[in-house]
């Protein structure tokens, strides 16, 4: 067992022990939560939705634990091409919060085992949608077996009545393996740290500040098992531009190393109406090299993100109102290198320039009306709207992909008390959404317009991303206390979602999720 795997198992084991011990402590406190109550608690905790861990102390510092295991599956052709025609996920999650003297700690662990069937094009990255234009595609639809381990914790400590300190950290380790030539074994990890502080100007006015640093690495090793069949690989460098590489039979190592720095500021007001305004800025630089023995600089991305979110919550006697407004901006510069092999020094970097730009803007808002209840809420009805504008450019020779969408969702939930004995509850929900496409174009101006990167991947992608489609979802969660003298609540949840494109040729997609779990 190599060092990485050993560390990963230690991490997982430690996280599980931590969370289970929290569960035991919480059980003794006899304050179990139903799924609706847990949801309500998170909606109430406005600071929990920011990267400022210190702010957790300004909300409900509930002690709880939740364990769940589930299975979900996707079927259907209405998808981005790199997603599987079928996708199955086995998931396990553990989440909990505990008070350790004056420190409030929260932790979460997620594990998923994913199987993709008939995923197209992607032949190098565990997550081809993470904003990395430099990767490799091929033409063999393939299965992928992926595993994901996500661990996170937050801790908040009050140094005085006015100053709170906090830290949030997370570790992700994802492994992906493509099952057909060109084979890929890709390992991705991030380590994320967010130290934070909150200063309470008055009991009602709070300002917060956090820093953000994360380190990312992905090592993608490609190989070919059947050496007698020449496999064409296409090394992508943005918007369908690609370099055909027949030498992939000799293997290829892609090494992605990135660093992100950022900060966030927050202002919160606690009155009859509580609101929190948070703005985060992140800047990531990720370098891509090919090979480790004689590394060649393939490219760099400079990824800038700015997110601003306003949340407001009013809790009345009978009804409560939640309101959100958000704006996200992301700009990625794709830097390419001119390199030349030098027999004695390896690949020399002779020149670099920005050759592609990827811009995404999202503006959204939502309103939810809650009917107050003893267990979180009795019912809720909400409306969400999101406007997305995407504009990607390859500068020379010029290519462009752009689209604009408005995504509208109306959702409702009802929390039924079936029986007071053991608090038997049924939480049912339904939502309908519609994606209105305002525009969508892909124009390729580079060399080799007949490459699969152009007529296959990019064309399929824009067809999906610029589609008008409808989406309907229903869900039901049954929960009850395990017994009369325990605070533990067990639950079973089922969700079904169906989406269908207006253009018939794009097809439809279904999603079914089944999970069981327990809150302590």
């Amino acid at each position, binding site marked *: 067992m190599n060092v990485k795997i050993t560390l990963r198992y230690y991490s997982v084991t430690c996280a599980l022990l931590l969370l289970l011990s929290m569960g035991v402590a919480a059980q003794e406190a006899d304050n179990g939560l139903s799924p609706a109550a847990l949801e309500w608690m998170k909606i109430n905790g406005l600071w929990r939705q920011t990267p400022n861990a210190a702010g957790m102390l300004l909300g409900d510092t509930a002690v709880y634990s939740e364990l769940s295991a589930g299975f979900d599956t996707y079927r259907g052709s209405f998808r981005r091409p790199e997603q599987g025609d079928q996708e199955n996920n086995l998931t396990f999650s553990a989440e909990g919060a505990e008070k350790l003297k004056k420190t409030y700690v929260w932790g979460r662990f997620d594990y998923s085992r994913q199987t993709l069937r008939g995923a197209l094009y992607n032949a190098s990255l565990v997550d081809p949608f993470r904003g990395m234009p430099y990767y490799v595609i091929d033409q063999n639809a393939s299965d992928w077996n992926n595993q994901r381990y996500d661990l996170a914790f937050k801790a908040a400590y009050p140094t005085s009545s006015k100053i709170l300190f906090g830290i949030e950290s997370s570790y992700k380790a994802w492994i992906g393996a493509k099952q057909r030539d060109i084979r890929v074994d890709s390992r991705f990890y991030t380590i994320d740290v967010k130290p934070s502080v909150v200063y309470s100007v008055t009991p009602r006015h709070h300002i917060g500040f956090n820093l953000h*640093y994360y*380190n990312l690495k992905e090592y993608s090793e490609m190989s070919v098992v059947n050496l*007698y*069949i*020449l496999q*064409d690989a296409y090394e992508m460098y943005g918007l369908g*531009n690609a*370099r*055909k*590489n*027949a*030498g992939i039979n000799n293997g290829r190592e892609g090494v992605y190393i990135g*660093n992100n*720095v950022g900060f966030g500021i927050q202002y919160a007001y606690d009155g009859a109406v509580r609101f929190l305004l948070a703005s985060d800025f992140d*800047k990531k*630089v990720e*370098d891509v090299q090919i090979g480790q023995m004689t590394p060649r600089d393939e490219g*760099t991305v*400079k990824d800038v993100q700015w997110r601003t979110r306003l949340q407001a919550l009013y809790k009345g006697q009978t009804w409560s109102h939640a309101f959100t407004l958000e704006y996200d901006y992301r700009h990625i*510069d794709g*830097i*390419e290198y*001119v*390199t*030349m*092999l030098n*027999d004695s020094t390896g690949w020399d970097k*002779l*020149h*670099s*320039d*920005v*050759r592609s730009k990827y811009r995404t803007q999202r503006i959204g808002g939502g309103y939810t009306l809650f009917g107050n209840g003893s267990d979180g809420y009795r019912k809720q009805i909400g409306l969400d709207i999101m406007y997305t504008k995407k504009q990607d450019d390859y*500068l*020379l*020779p010029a290519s462009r992909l752009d689209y604009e969408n408005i995504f509208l969702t109306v959702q409702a939930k009802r929390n039924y008390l079936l029986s007071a004995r053991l608090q038997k509850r049924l939480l049912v929900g339904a939502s309908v959404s519609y994606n209105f496409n305002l525009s969508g174009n892909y124009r390729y101006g*580079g*060399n*080799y317009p007949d490459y699969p990167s152009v007529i296959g991947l990019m064309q399929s992608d824009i067809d999906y991303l610029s589609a008008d489609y409808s989406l309907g979802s229903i869900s039901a969660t049954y929960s009850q206390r395990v017994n009369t003298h325990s605070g533990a609540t067990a639950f079973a949840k089922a969700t079904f979602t169906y989406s269908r494109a207006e253009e018939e040729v794009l097809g439809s997609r279904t999603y079914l999720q089944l999970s069981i779990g327990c809150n302590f």
Partner: protein
Amino acid sequence: MTIKQNAIYILIAALWTAVFTGCESFSDADGVTDIRYLSAQVTISSDTYETTGEGLTLSLTDVDKGTVIEKALTGSTIALDEILPGIYNLSVYGSTKDAEGRDIYLNGEHTNYPIVENNKKIEVEMKGSLLGPVIFKEIFFSGTANFYFRNQFYEVYNNSDETVYLDGLYFANLYPTTASTFRPIWREEDKGDYVYADRIWKFPGNGTDYPLAPGESCVISQFAANHKLPQYNPNSPVDGTSSEFEFNMNNPNYPDQPAPDMVHVFYDGKAGKGGSPQYLTSVFGGAFVLFKPLDENYDPVNDKKWQAIDQDDYYEQILAKIPYSYVWDAVEAGPNESMLKGKRVPGVLDAGMTYVGDIYNSLSVARKKIGERADGTPRLQDSNNSTNDFEHGVTPQFRRYGAKMPAWNHTLTGK
């Protein structure tokens, strides 16, 4: 020092390293500007041949991205603009005549040449090579599924207006045997205007045994059998029995066929054929030359001055040097259009590269027809640029376009 202190120091060191590394990559990325077009000025010169530049063509190919700029020269200097920063194969080429009135192919080149700064002045030294009367007409190197490679063949053709005797003409495949971005590292004494042969063969004959008249073809097969027979590969598009010659490697499992054998000249510094059971050239695409030594003492087996070694080759295989001036024709083939950066053949001999795009796909490369003689035999394109001169990915065929079989073909003489 406690374990806790150690852990803190390690954590601080790790964070410092990460932040320091991160800062460097941030400052590097922030200093990069948007791409813009570059300009350059190309000037040609030649010590050997007089040329005004008139009639020559400049070709600039981005070896990574495939962008091609072509311009006709009207003088010895030409200005280029709208060049994207990159690594290029630059070639200035065209035909002329030498002092003796022979057709000469002129070429000046820079291969894998970086153009990354604006207003670059580029000097190109023009060199010449003979436009050989006998040229490669068709090459089938990819083989047939599943993994059948014995049907490889090479067809050579008399594209001139004079009868040429094949006797003593050499055939070689070049090193590296497949296109590669990793360049050989030659010893000082091995550098020069040479291509480097992996293996050399020679046409048999006493000087007048094998005449090739204008419009006649000669096919040399790896194994001159009917490959469509059940014991070989019924999917093969090739029946090699009418080949003029074969490369016989004395393999009892694939016995000598009626076609006369080529004469083996050189492999790894020796005259012997070595242990290989067949003369297999790369199914990804090799590079091939037809040549006739100008030095009658050319002997790469016994005279070490004609031998070369790639210092980067673990096996230290001995290769044979072939001066550019000996070469009648050269063709470079590679896996696909993106492997131009792995060229082995200098532009003066072949400024391009041809390909079939896959292995074992039963497709060949065939020289383009540009006209016809009065007798219906074709005139073929020969601009010393395989990218332009060859159709790539065609079904293999002997004597395409009505090329004639020489009268001495064994199927006609019965010998």
